[in-house]
């Protein structure tokens, strides 16, 4: 497999843009990523597109805004993990030598309110079970009992995310909130309150990748390399295999081990992390699953400020899903964008470790699976 670098990344700001079309959103993100990369669109050989709610062939309608060069445009869907799946496919196509340059795009336009994860007439919907925050809330309540965590510790995730979002001009929410604000916002699925839920969002993100051997013609200086990856779809774990009440981190743990093996690195090497915090408890479950803290200690780690920008395990430095926003098809590429900024020392006020960050970890989950990526510089 060839060494592959991320040459450029860019976003259309996340937020609510009722007057903009998907091509409007996507074009701006692609322009920003191409500008950042130095690669002209005519040199892009393939495009992989992560998107969920748009209709048939939506990828082409966005990518062709930049020109109709006849390249393959491949639409990929894995719910909230769609554009890290697109990134993974693009990476494999370049690493295996099929293409030298590839564009990855993620975009979404969403309705307000609870996201509809099951058909309106389905059993899950009629019974009131298809409530997305409930799955996090169920896990959170068990976690609190098993590990002595408090509801405020989950709330603190959102406080940190909003503080980081206030430093990110591309974030949907750019205003800090207090722990009281979070805890006093209305309950959605106890203990998850409104401010512990990621918003529905319009937005787009794009990334340009290239064979490392071809990178010099476009860009010089510090570049982010793709060092490791893993993808899976939720392996069934027999009932007897985990102790009762044990935090369910099996799938993340299984996949991140594969990614570390490919990268030749481990959790002790990580400088900065992006995790899937669709709801605030997610950050805590994810940092445990990724091995950044022991199982049962994630909530305390958040409470102690360890996941802040200046903490020892900075997480979601751009505001995460909670504050940056969660346009489901675009989220994965936005995660890659933030890690690239951090690893190239271009994260500005959000920069971790004084710019001396060299290993970035990404965990992006969706209904249907999970992607882990390891980038290095």
């Amino acid at each position, binding site marked *: 497999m060839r060494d592959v670098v991320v040459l450029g990344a860019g976003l259309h700001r996340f937020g609510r843009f009722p007057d903009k079309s998907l091509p409007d959103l996507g074009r701006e993100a692609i322009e920003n990523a191409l500008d950042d990369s130095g690669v002209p669109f005519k040199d892009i050989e393939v495009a992989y597109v992560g998107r969920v709610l748009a209709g048939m062939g939506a990828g082409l309608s966005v990518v062709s805004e930049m020109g109709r060069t006849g390249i393959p445009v491949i639409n990929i869907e894995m719910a909230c993990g769609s554009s890290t799946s697109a990134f993974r496919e693009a990476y494999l196509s370049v690493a295996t030598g099929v293409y030298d340059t590839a564009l990855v795009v993620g975009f979404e336009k969403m309705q307000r309110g609870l996201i509809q994860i099951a058909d*309106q007439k389905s059993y899950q919907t009629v019974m009131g079970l298809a409530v997305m925050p409930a799955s996090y809330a169920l896990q959170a309540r068990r976690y609190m009992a098993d590990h002595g965590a408090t509801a405020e510790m989950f709330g603190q995730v959102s406080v940190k995310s909003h503080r980081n979002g206030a430093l990110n001009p591309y974030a949907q929410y750019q205003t800090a909130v207090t722990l009281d604000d979070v805890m006093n916002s209305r309950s959605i699925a106890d203990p998850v309150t409104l401010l512990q839920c990621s918003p529905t969002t319009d937005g787009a993100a794009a990334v340009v990748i290239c064979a490392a051997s071809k990178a010099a013609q476009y860009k010089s200086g510090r570049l982010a390399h793709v060092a490791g990856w893993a993808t899976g779809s939720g392996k069934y774990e027999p009932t007897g295999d985990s102790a009762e009440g044990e935090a369910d981190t099996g799938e993340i743990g299984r996949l991140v081990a594969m990614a570390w093996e490919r990268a030749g690195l481990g959790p002790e090497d990580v400088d900065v992390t992006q995790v899937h915090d669709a709801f605030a408890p997610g950050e805590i479950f994810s940092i445990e699953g990724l091995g950044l803290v022991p199982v049962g200690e994630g909530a305390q780690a958040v409470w102690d400020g360890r996941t802040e920008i200046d903490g020892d395990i900075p997480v979601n430095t751009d505001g995460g899903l909670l504050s940056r926003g969660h346009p489901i098809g675009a989220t994965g590429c936005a995660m890659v964008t933030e890690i690239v900024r951090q690893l190239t020392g271009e994260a500005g006020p959000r920069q971790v470790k004084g710019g001396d960050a060299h290993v970035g970890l990404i965990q992006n989950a969706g209904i249907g699976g999970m992607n882990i990526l390891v980038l290095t510089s």
Partner: protein
Amino acid sequence: MNAAAETTKGQSEDIRPLSAGQFIAAPTPGERARLRGARCRACGETFFPPRRYCAACTSGEMEDIELPSSGSVESFTIVHQQLPGSAMIPPYAIVNVRLGAGPVVQTVLREGHEMLELDDDVALVVETVLNEDSHSYVAFIARRLAGGSKEEGK
């Protein structure tokens, strides 16, 4: 789907399970739920709802089993926001119920959710959840077992 909000006992002509195949015998409102599960003959893992191939070992040698009609609350959450299309009116609890050594099943608990605690024992009973087009749709829901909770022991 306005009728979705109507969960009162209607004068419906017939009773239908909201989800076909969940019950091992015709469900009767008010009675214990006799749930149909599946057990893998190869590795012994049990599932609900039943499936044709084992999720653990991929064997196709599955047999129907009747699951226990009570279990303990592994976790729960109180839902405060109306899900569009749902017959459940907030607040209500979503509960994960562990059926002994068998599978964990998920359902709702409508009455007494404010007294619910982790590891409480609950019964799974048949209730009408939806009246629509002159049919009563029934499903299994969780109900706190009298005498099984901490409050009632006080």
